[in-house]
């Protein structure tokens, strides 16, 4: 079963960046921050990072590994990989719809629904 990230409220976007960062390999907090800044172009604060990490860990999307020199790496779980893949698919579909409409694509149906991840209620 895929768990959406929309229920994470303001932590949904940082959580997605973290999942993408961890999809490469396990990383500790500092490495995740640096990688997210590279991916997104804007820095992620320590409070936001750990707010998102705590939520992802609680939902079983990531798991902590044994600490290395007081730095604890995190890695994606199977559920995390599935969730990330589903989120990226939804974003990709959304991007396709948006680009198609921008280019005046007449082949897109007018009542094309938005992906569920972009239309659901926001909870924490």
């Amino acid at each position, binding site marked *: 079963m895929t768990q959406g990230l929309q229920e994470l409220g303001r932590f949904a976007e940082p959580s997605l960046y973290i999942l993408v960062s961890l999809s490469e390999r396990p990383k500790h907090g500092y490495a995740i921050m640096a990688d997210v800044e590279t991916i997104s172009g804007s820095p992620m604060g320590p*409070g936001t990072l750990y707010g998102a990490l705590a939520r992802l860990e609680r939902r079983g999307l990531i798991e902590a590994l044994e600490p290395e020199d007081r730095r604890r790496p995190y890695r994606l779980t199977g559920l995390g990989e599935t969730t990330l893949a589903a989120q990226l698919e939804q974003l990709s579909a959304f991007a396709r719809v948006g680009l198609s409409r921008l280019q005046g694509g007449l082949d897109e149906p007018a009542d094309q629904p938005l992906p569920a991840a972009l239309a659901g209620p926001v909870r924490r």
Partner: protein
Amino acid sequence: MSRLISLYPRPWRDRYEDEFRLISLYPRPWRDRYEDEFRVLISGRQPSTRERLDIVRGAIDARLHPQVPGAPRDADRFGFAALAGLAAFVAALVIAANGPVHSDAYGTYRDGSAAVPVMMVATFLLSISVFRVVMQLPTTAIVGQSAGVLACVVLLFWPLMFWVMPVGVVVLVSVMLLAVSAHRPGIWPMWLSGAMVAVLTIPAGLMAVLAVLPWYTARELNLNMLILVGPMAAIWLLVGIGLLRGVPRRPAP
């Protein structure tokens, strides 16, 4: 952890301890789980103002939307003894406030001695409750344990010397030290220990001032004793709440 920080050179501590203090804003279960790695994260760089605000915002979020469950706690039913003591203390105040009025060479005063037996019950119940808090402290909390035991003993005799101000100062300061010691290992939350210290500071200060004044001068101040002793009801109430909240259950070996 603070001992580990002291190993760093002074310029480093000056630069980063401010950020480390912000971590104390996070709730205890969060700190138990993430504090070590969070410290490493922010010690590797100098956080900007925006990042400091982000840490504070994260702490508020961690309190409003806790993601790390706290350890299960075992409530101590002796908290009810403290609350019963609170009822006795209030009863003692009512009795004292309605005692007979006497006059002497210095003027008139209200004789509250009828309240002494009820007050003894109240302080006895508080004494055993305070002792329960002492028993919850770790063996390393020597200051807290000493202050707590001192409070237990003095409380038993306090009603007999209620107007001897230095005794009251000893009781109140001991209880405040005990409250601070109970916070350090996570037995009492910050708000509970902070409330105890905040509420007792004024009565303790007033008692300390009255203790150094000649007794007739103190009497001429015509201080309303309810202002002095009323806030002390907080001792029974907060000790009772602390015991009923319980202590974190130790994991099975």
